[in-house]
C-alpha cells in the first residue's frame, strides 16, 4: 500500500478542486455559447407563431449606391438574382427550421393565388417595411392579407450597399487606405392584423455583397441568428 505524503495529498486535493472549477467554467462557457446560438430573437418569435399561420416572404429590396456621389448602381453588376435567392433562402431556412408547420408564401409559390397581387403591391414598400416603418398604403395591403388568413405575418428584408473607392498603397510616401464599402441588411417580421413589428434586426458588414463569399453568406445567416459569428 502506498502511503502519501500529507503535504502532497493536500496539494493533490487542491489541484483536483482547481480542475473541477476549470471544468465547470469551461462547461458554463460552452453552454452559454449554445444558448446564444439557439435562442436568437427571431427564432423565439417563429416558434411562438400558431401552426395555422402564414408568413408572406417579400423579395429583398436591393439597393446599391456609390459612396462618392450617391449615384445608384445597377444591382445586376453584383449578381442581384443570386443575392436575392441567397437572402430568400436564408429567410426560409430561419422560418422552416423553427416552425416547420408554417406556410410560407413567396414569389415562387404565390403565382395565380390571391397572394400574387398582394405581394406585388407590397414590393415598393419592402425597404421601408424592413426598417420597421409602416405607412397607410402598406397597412391597407396588410388588412387584405389578414382577410385571407387572420394569423398572417410579413417578413420584409432589404440589402443596402454603399460602394466606395478601393484601398491603395503608395510606396513613395508610405500612404495607405482601406476600401470604404459597407453593406447593411435589415429584416422585420410584421403581424398583418395589427401592423406591429414583432421583431427586427439590422446588421452591417464592411464588404461588397457577394453570393460567392463565405464571409457574406455567414453574415446573412448571422442576421437570422443561424450563425453566432458575423
Amino acid at each position: 500500500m502506498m502511503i502519501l505524503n500529507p503535504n502532497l495529498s493536500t496539494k493533490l486535493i487542491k489541484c483536483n478542486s482547481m480542475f473541477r472549477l476549470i471544468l465547470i467554467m469551461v462547461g458554463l462557457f460552452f453552454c452559454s455559447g449554445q444558448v446564444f446560438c439557439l435562442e436568437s430573437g427571431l427564432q423565439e418569435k417563429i416558434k411562438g407563431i400558431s401552426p395555422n399561420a402564414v408568413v408572406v416572404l417579400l423579395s429583398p429590396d436591393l439597393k446599391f449606391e456609390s459612396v462618392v456621389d450617391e449615384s445608384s448602381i445597377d444591382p445586376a453588376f453584383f449578381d442581384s438574382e443570386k443575392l436575392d435567392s441567397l437572402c430568400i433562402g436564408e429567410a426560409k431556412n430561419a422560418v422552416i427550421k423553427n416552425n416547420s408547420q408554417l406556410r410560407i408564401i413567396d414569389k415562387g409559390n404565390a403565382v395565380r393565388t390571391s397572394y400574387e397581387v398582394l405581394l406585388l403591391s407590397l414590393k415598393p414598400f419592402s425597404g421601408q417595411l424592413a426598417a420597421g416603418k409602416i405607412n397607410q398604403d402598406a397597412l391597407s395591403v396588410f388588412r387584405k392579407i389578414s382577410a385571407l388568413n387572420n394569423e398572417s405575418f410579413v417578413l420584409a428584408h432589404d440589402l443596402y450597399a454603399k460602394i466606395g473607392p478601393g484601398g491603395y498603397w503608395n510606396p513613395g510616401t508610405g500612404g495607405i487606405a482601406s476600401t470604404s464599402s459597407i453593406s447593411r441588411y435589415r429584416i422585420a417580421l410584421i403581424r398583418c392584423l395589427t401592423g406591429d413589428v414583432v421583431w427586427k434586426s439590422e446588421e452591417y458588414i464592411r464588404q461588397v455583397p457577394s453570393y460567392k463569399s463565405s464571409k457574406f453568406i455567414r453574415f446573412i445567416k448571422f442576421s437570422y441568428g443561424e450563425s453566432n459569428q458575423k
Partner: protein
Amino acid sequence: MGKSSVFHASFFIVVLMLITGCAGTYVTKPIYSQEGFHLEEVQQISLLLPVDSRFDKKENIDLKKIQGKCSDMIKKKAYQVLEVPVNQGVKIDEDDLKSGNQVFIKNICAAGTSRYVMLVNILDVSTKLTFGSTGNAEVSGYIFDKDSGVAIWHHKGIGQVGQGGLLGMLMKSSMDNEAVMVALHNLFSSIPLQKDFKKNK
C-alpha cells in the same frame, strides 16, 4: 509661335496661378443645388448639431467638436455661422433627409434661428490596423430653406487616410479624426466663397 514659346507661356501661367492663389479657390460641383439659387449671396447660416446615422458606431465621435470644425470651415468662406447647440428633437436618418418631406424638414429647421439651416450627417467613421493604420469617413451635408421647407444644397464628402509601417500603426488612434477632417474638407469644398469675402477679409 514656336514650341519653346508655347512652353514658356504655359510655364508663366502656372507660376502666375500659384502666386495669385487661383489654385486654392477651386470649388467642386455639389451633388444638388437648387436651380437659380446662389449660395454665395447667403449671409448667415444656422449650423445644427451634426446627426450620427452610422451603421457602425464602434468609433467614438464628438458631435460638438465636429460642429465646431464645420463652423470654422464655413466661417473661413466669410459666412456668418450660428451654432445651434441642441439636438434636433426628431430622429433623423439619411433616407428621411433624402425624401425631401417638407413637414419633416420644417421640424428639423425649427431649432435654427436664421432662414438657411445647415445639417451635417455623419454616415461612417472607421479605422483599421494593418501593417500601418487607415481611417475612413463619410459625411453628407444639407442646407435647408426654413421658410419653404426644401433642401437648397446637398453634397457629400469622403475621407480616406492612412500611413504604412510601424509609425502608421502608432497613429491608429488619430486616424478617425483625420478621416473626418478630410471628409468635412471635401464636403465644404463645394461651398463657394461668400460674395463679400474680400470685403469681410
